[in-house]
């Protein structure tokens, strides 16, 4: 019976979407904010990558909330999974290939991750993508040798400080009368590594925070006692 009602619900939804689908015309409406930003972003924010100027400049508030969601998910995950039983069974150490590979990959991944974070305002990529690469860089040794646990205190300290730096940069603008999260410092010339004022600093804070948070989340999930 339940399957029937769900199937009917789905059919109705499909018809509704088909009706909307017919009424839509694609790509005829001009994106108001988009065109204004495309014309004004170069001199207002000074980042070569306009998506970064939107993520950190025009809509920096969304990114701050985005960081808070990851922080909350990590905290709630820690709350849910709770402390690990000290005598919980751990996975056996991984084979030689993974251990050798882990030792080789770790420095490369860290370099790539930091590169992507630092060039966030020039080329595609940035704090989120670089942070994920850093998280996997710190997680692979844990896969290779489950015996050596990651120190959660270090991870949560980096997490807290990076997040606080992001908001502190935002609050700095308020001290001299500007609105919250206004991009600071001089913009430098377009395309240079040291350009777009405080945006690279913000993306560095985002990268460190996302990296440490996701590494903590992965560690929590993999450290809960091994089943079978």
């Amino acid at each position, binding site marked *: 019976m339940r399957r029937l009602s769900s199937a009917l619900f789905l059919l109705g939804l499909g018809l509704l979407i088909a009706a909307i689908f017919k009424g*839509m015309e694609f790509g005829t409406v001009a994106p108001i904010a988009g065109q204004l930003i495309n014309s004004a972003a170069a001199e207002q924010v000074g980042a070569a990558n306009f*998506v970064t100027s*939107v993520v950190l400049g025009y809509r920096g508030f969304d990114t701050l909330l985005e960081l808070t969601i990851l922080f909350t998910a990590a905290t709630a995950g820690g709350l849910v999974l709770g402390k690990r039983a000290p005598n919980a069974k751990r996975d056996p150490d991984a084979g030689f290939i993974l251990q050798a590979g882990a030792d080789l990959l770790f420095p490369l991944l860290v370099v790539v991750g930091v590169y992507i974070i630092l060039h966030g305002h020039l080329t595609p990529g940035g704090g989120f993508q670089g942070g994920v690469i850093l998280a996997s860089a710190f997680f692979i040794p844990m896969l290779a040798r489950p015996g050596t646990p990651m120190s959660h205190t270090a991870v949560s300290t980096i997490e807290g400080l990076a997040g606080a730096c992001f908001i502190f940069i935002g609050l700095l603008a308020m001290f001299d009368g500007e609105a919250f999260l206004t991009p600071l410092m001089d913009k430098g010339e377009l395309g240079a590594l040291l350009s777009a004022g405080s945006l690279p600093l913000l993306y560095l804070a985002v990268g460190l925070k996302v990296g440490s948070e996701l590494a903590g989340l992965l560690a929590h999930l993999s450290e809960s006692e091994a089943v079978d």
Partner: protein
Amino acid sequence: MLDTGLVLYSAAFGLILIGIAGIVLSAHLVRIIFGVALLEAGANLLLLLATWREGASAPIIVAGRVPEFMADPVPQALVLTAIVIGVGILALALSLALRVQRAYGTLDMHEVRQRMEQEIADQAGIDMPASSHAPAAVQAARQEGSA
């Protein structure tokens, strides 16, 4: 003759419908979480398609050359945020699934709901009438008072 916009929009709506079907029809918790992830992917694609136009170029200035007709950067920033939200919630959902499986020994949502209702009733001290359609396994479990 083949309208790319039509294909892309049908992909977005298709993903949304498959995601909703996954949530509504499946009983196993992990499959429902797959459905949620697919639904969010479909919504993200639809958001990016909103102001997409053929022939626009990426909104990035490379070597000082400003492309004349750039894509809209705003939905790209929004989808970037939505994807990272999705992974945050996915991690929380999987941790909860882990604890539910450890507490109830099953991930079948009908049985989980049955056991949860039973536990709420026991905690509140009201004797829940053994509902007639409860599967035999749950009846047996209730006799030995497990979990």
